[in-house]
C-alpha cells in the first residue's frame, strides 16, 4: 500500500515538473514578451550602468554600512520634511545669484528697509536658529 502511495506521489511530482517546464517554455516562446524585455534592458542607459558597475557596487557598499544607513535615514527624513514650494523658491533665488548683474550692491539704508520685510525677518530668524544649532 505504501509503495503505491509513493509511486503515486512521484508521478504527481513529475507531472507538476512537466507543467512547470511547459510554463517556462510558454514564456520562452513568447516573442512579444522577449521583445519588450530586450527593449527595456538594451538601452544606452543600461550600457552606461553596466560600464560603471564596479563604481556602483563600491558606492552601494559604502552607502549600506551601518553608520551611513543611519545618516541616510536622517537625510531622507530631512528631505521629506522639506516643502516643495520652498525648494522651488530657493532654486529660483540661487539661479538669480548666478546671473551676477541682477544682484545689485545694497546700501545700509536699503538693508534696514529689507530687514523690516516680514519674509526677510522670518528667514533671518530661521537662519539664526540654524547657526545656533551648528555652533552648539
Amino acid at each position: 500500500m505504501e509503495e503505491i502511495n509513493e509511486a503515486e506521489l512521484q508521478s504527481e511530482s513529475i507531472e507538476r515538473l512537466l507543467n512547470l517546464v511547459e510554463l517556462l517554455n510558454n514564456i520562452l516562446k513568447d516573442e512579444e514578451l522577449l521583445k519588450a524585455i530586450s527593449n527595456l534592458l538594451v538601452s544606452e542607459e543600461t550600457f552606461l550602468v553596466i560600464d560603471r558597475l564596479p563604481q556602483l557596487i563600491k558606492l552601494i557598499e559604502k552607502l549600506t554600512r551601518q553608520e551611513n544607513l543611519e545618516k541616510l535615514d536622517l537625510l531622507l527624513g530631512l528631505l521629506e520634511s522639506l516643502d516643495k514650494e520652498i525648494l522651488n523658491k530657493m532654486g529660483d533665488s540661487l539661479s538669480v545669484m548666478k546671473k551676477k548683474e541682477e544682484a545689485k550692491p545694497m546700501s545700509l539704508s536699503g538693508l534696514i528697509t529689507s530687514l523690516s520685510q516680514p519674509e526677510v525677518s522670518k528667514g533671518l530668524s530661521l537662519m539664526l536658529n540654524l547657526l545656533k544649532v551648528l555652533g552648539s
Partner: protein
Amino acid sequence: MIEKEKFLIVGGGSGGAILANSLAKEFDVTVINDSPNHYYWPQLLQIAFRNDYSNLYRPLSSLLVKGVNLIIDSVKKIDLQERSITLSTNKKLSYDYIAIAPGVTIDHKSIEGNEKLVNQFGDFHSTPENASKVFNIVNSMKKGTFVISVGDPYHRCPPSPYEGILLADEVFRLRGVRENINMVLAVPYPRAYPAETFNEVLEPILKERGINVMTFFTADKIDTDNKKITSLEGEELSYDAAIVVPVHKGPKIEIKPEDSVNQDGFINADKLTNQILSYDDAFAIGDASTSTNAKTGVTAHLQAKVVAKRVLGLDAKNTGRTNCPTEIGFQKGTFVISDYNHPAVKVPANTINFIMKRLFADVYWDVIKHPEFWDPIFDVYFERTEPEVLWRIFK
C-alpha cells in the same frame, strides 16, 4: 467513508475550471462543458493583430485536476427548485451545489447588417476565424477610413476596443500606410473610455496616435452596400473597413425559475456572493452573471475563489476588483484596476506593464491547473495592487 456532496459546474472556462480545481478534494465535482477545449478569449486580439494563435486553447481535460469529472455536452435546462440539470442528450443530473459559468453568447443578429459585416471584416469578440479576418484586413488596407465601433457597452474585456484600435494603428504604422488611413473609434459613452478617471490615461494616448473618437455612438444598423453605420443615437458613420463589437447575451440555457434570468439572458446573482436569488446552493459566476462588473477572466477567477470559500463555510465576498491588462501597441501597456469602492486608477502606460500582461497570459494555463501554487502569489499581488494603495501612488 462519508460520501461527498455533488457539485455541478456548468462551463469549464476560467471561472468554472478554477472552481472545480479548488474544490476537487472536498466535493464530488463534475464539470459540464459544450466543447472539449478551454478557450483563452484574450488570444482573439493576438490573432486579429499579430496572427498569433499560441495560447488560444488547451484540452479542458488537461486543465482539470485528478478527481474532477468532465462531461462534454451542452446543458439544455437547469431547474434550481428541483436541483437538477438536463443535458442535450436528455440525461438528467441532480446536485447538492451548482455553479453556472457558461460565459456569454455572441449575437451578431441584434445589430442589423452585422452578420454581413463580420463576414467581410471579422471581429475580435467571437471566433478565431473572425479574428483572422481582422488580421487580413489590417494587413491589406492601404487607404480609407478604418472604424471600430462598440455595439454593446457590456462586451467582454472592457479595454479590448481600445487595444484593437491602437494595435491596428501599430500595424498600419509598421506597414507605412498610416497616413493614408483615417482611424475612428466610436463608443456609446460620453467620453472615450467609460470610466472618467481611466479616460485621463487613455484619451491623451488616442489623441497622440491620431485616432478620432466619436462619443455617444452605439452601432445599431449597418448598411454594407453603402458602407455606413447608423447609431442608436441617430448619427451616421461612413467606413471603408469596420469592425463592430457585437451584442453579448446570456447563455442559451433554460433556467428555472424564470426570474433568475434577466431580459438579455444574464443570470441574476448577488454582486457580493454570486448567489442566485435566494438559492443558497446555486451560484452564477463570470461573464454569464449579472454580478460581474467587468466581463474578464480575472473577475471570473476571483468570483470562483469567493464561491469556493463560501461553500466551505467562510464568509468571503467579492470586492469588484478588476485587473484588465491593456496594451496600447509598441510594447507598452497599462492596467484598468478598480473595485466597487474605487474608480479605475490612473496607471500610466509603460513597458513593465506590457511585460506583466504577457506574463499573465503565459502563466494562464498553469494558474487554472494549480490554484494551490498560484493562490498565495495572487493573494499578495491583489493585496499590493489594491486600488486604495494604487490611488495613493498614481494621483
